């Protein structure tokens, strides 16, 4: 019989090995799933994980896409990870991402067609402020009325999506768009564009912001009192209270940071890769970022790597859709499966498994 014995401290070796193990298990289970769908499992896995990087036919196009897709994921996941560490569950990043895009785009469009170098920075501020404000709704309801922040932040995603379609069809619709939904194309207006900074890399301002966020979070967690409070609140809430950490303050700070970062991600996306506010603007980055945060073990460097891996599954998924006729939804199921396996093998980090001949319980 298997018996579990709690480790005094989580195993460091397993903490690094478990994400890799989870990826391997997901590849096996994913292969089985693809086989059930009548596809060659080996070809499917190779198309998703190998071809985007190394196949000479596709790599030139898909390598830069890696940073384009990873940027928003990393940016959002870094914010979420701070809260998750402290036991503050913001799962509505998708909504904060959408609102950031709306407020940022609105700030720019209000000044159209003026030409100024100040417009883009202004939009960045407006995007961050929008995401921040949207995140403050669950945070304040939590601290003032003790309302469950998980449910409120999630329900607000549906509200944000309705607002998005209202904006695409109404207030922000392109007056020269011939009645089609969607705003002006912000990536084609010099003052608001978020272009590729180094040709052929996919690096845009959102990616730069993501790297800054990784460094910022690393320093915060390792060297700053706030980072210590966050870690303490997650590991020992009672001890944290005795140490003078205010749970309410932590809720506000964690939601504020993650909301602002998600809003930034939305703004960089709407001014760059997406180009406009439109009905299909929300792509689920806010939800996938939850997986990225866990896959990266809530650690800034881990999140950087996890974001790149998850971006690879997006690009490989598109390629598999195109090459093998694999349905787009397969990738989402694949990503969900990855989180399952990660949570499942996490037990190796926190518990020691003992095998004994007979057990009493």
């Amino acid at each position, binding site marked *: 019989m298997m018996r*579990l*014995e*709690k480790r005094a401290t989580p195993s460091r070796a397993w903490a690094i090995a478990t994400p890799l193990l989870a990826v391997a298990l997901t590849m096996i289970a994913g292969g089985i799933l693809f086989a059930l*769908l009548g596809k060659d499992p080996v070809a499917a896995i190779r198309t998703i994980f190998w071809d985007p990087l190394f196949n000479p036919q596709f790599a030139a196009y898909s390598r830069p896409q890696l940073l384009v897709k990873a940027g928003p994921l990393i940016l959002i996941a870094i914010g979420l990870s701070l809260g998750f560490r402290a036991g503050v*569950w913001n*799962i509505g990043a998708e909504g904060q991402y959408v609102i950031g895009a709306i407020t940022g785009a609105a700030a720019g469009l209000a000044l159209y067609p003026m030409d100024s170098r100040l417009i883009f920075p202004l939009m960045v501020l407006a995007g961050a402020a929008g995401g921040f404000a949207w995140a403050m709704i669950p945070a304040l*309801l939590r601290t*003032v*009325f*003790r*309302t*469950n922040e*998980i*449910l*409120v932040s*999630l*329900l*607000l995603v*549906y*509200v944000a999506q*309705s*607002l998005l*379609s*209202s904006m695409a*069809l*109404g207030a922000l619709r392109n007056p020269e768009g011939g009645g089609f939904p969607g705003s002006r194309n912000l990536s084609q207006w010099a003052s608001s564009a978020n272009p590729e900074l180094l040709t052929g890399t996919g690096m845009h301002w959102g990616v730069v912001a993501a790297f800054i966020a990784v460094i910022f979070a690393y320093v915060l967690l390792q060297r700053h009192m706030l980072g210590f409070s966050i870690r303490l609140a997650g590991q020992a809430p009672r001890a944290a209270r005795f140490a003078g950490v205010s749970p309410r303050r932590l809720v506000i700070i964690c939601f504020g940071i993650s909301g602002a970062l998600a809003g930034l991600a939305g703004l960089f996306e709407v001014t760059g890769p997406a180009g406009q506010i439109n009905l299909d603007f929300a792509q689920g980055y806010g*939800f996938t970022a*939850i*997986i990225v945060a*866990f896959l990266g073990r809530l650690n800034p460097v881990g999140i950087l790597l996890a974001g790149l891996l998850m971006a690879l599954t997006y690009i490989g998924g598109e390629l598999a859709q195109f090459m093998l006729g694999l*349905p787009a*939804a*397969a*990738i*989402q*199921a*694949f*990503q*969900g*499966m990855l*989180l*399952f396996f990660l*949570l*499942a093998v*996490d*037990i190796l980090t*926190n*518990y020691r498994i003992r095998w004994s001949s007979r057990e009493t*319980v």
Partner: protein
Amino acid sequence: MDIGGINFVTLLSTLIVASVPILLAALGELVVEKSGTLNLGVEGMMIVGAVTGFVAAVSTGNPFLGFVAGAAAGAAMAGIFAVLTQVLLANQVASGLALTLFGLGLSSLIGQGWNGIRPPVTGDVPLGPLAEIPVLGPIVFSHDWMVYLSFAMVFAIGWYLKSTRGGLILRAVGESHAAAHALGYKVRRIRVLALLFGGAMAGCGGAYVSLVRVPQWTDGITSGAGWIALAIVVFASWKPWRVLLGAWLFGGISVLQLNLQAAGSRIPVEYLSMSPYVITILVLVLISSGRGRTMGAPADLGRTFHTSQ
């Protein structure tokens, strides 16, 4: 009975139908939470139930088998959650989210090629002359059997939790797993059974969405009903009959906003369609801010149980 272009008898009748999916899912989650586990994967279990139920009903031509398949699929999803949280002691919040993300992807994968098909009709229960009664007849006596089953479940679950030995043990496990374990109850087994039951209820609710409420298959068809069901459990202070009240309230709002849309209301469509979510949030605030903090939440809700601790 017409006010502002909306017929109230029809409105109440459709309200009852609209509330069935969230009622079933919320009742299931109520039992799960009473046993001390928080499963945030309701939306994922519902949508997998919706697609499985739809596929089963269309391919067999039998809506009853659709509901059975939906329930089985919901229970299977809950089984994954049970293994993760009860055997492998994974974080319940994260596991629930994983279940929803996985369920959304899996359902749209299964549902490929099933768009635009009409499912077999789940007919009304023939109640004869009762359905002919003016006003009361259309509202109460002209529904399909799932509606009556969902009402019966409210009473059955209420009675089970309150008046049976099994219900007492279930609640004990939710209030204090350490004490229940010390008394010799199988904490883990009881929680797994509760989870499977909750999954079956959510799956059945999902099947009701795709077979009766909408009736067709499209991606993301449950559109947040699972999250509203979770909110209703809080709203109901973990009491079955209040779950019924909550489901009617939210069923009413979603039907009313659809009616207002159809009646050409001056409020833009997008603002009407966000109203069920906004009102859910407002109600959550009102409920949480009043009186005592816990309001009947099981004391060990969401805590991981392990015998070595």
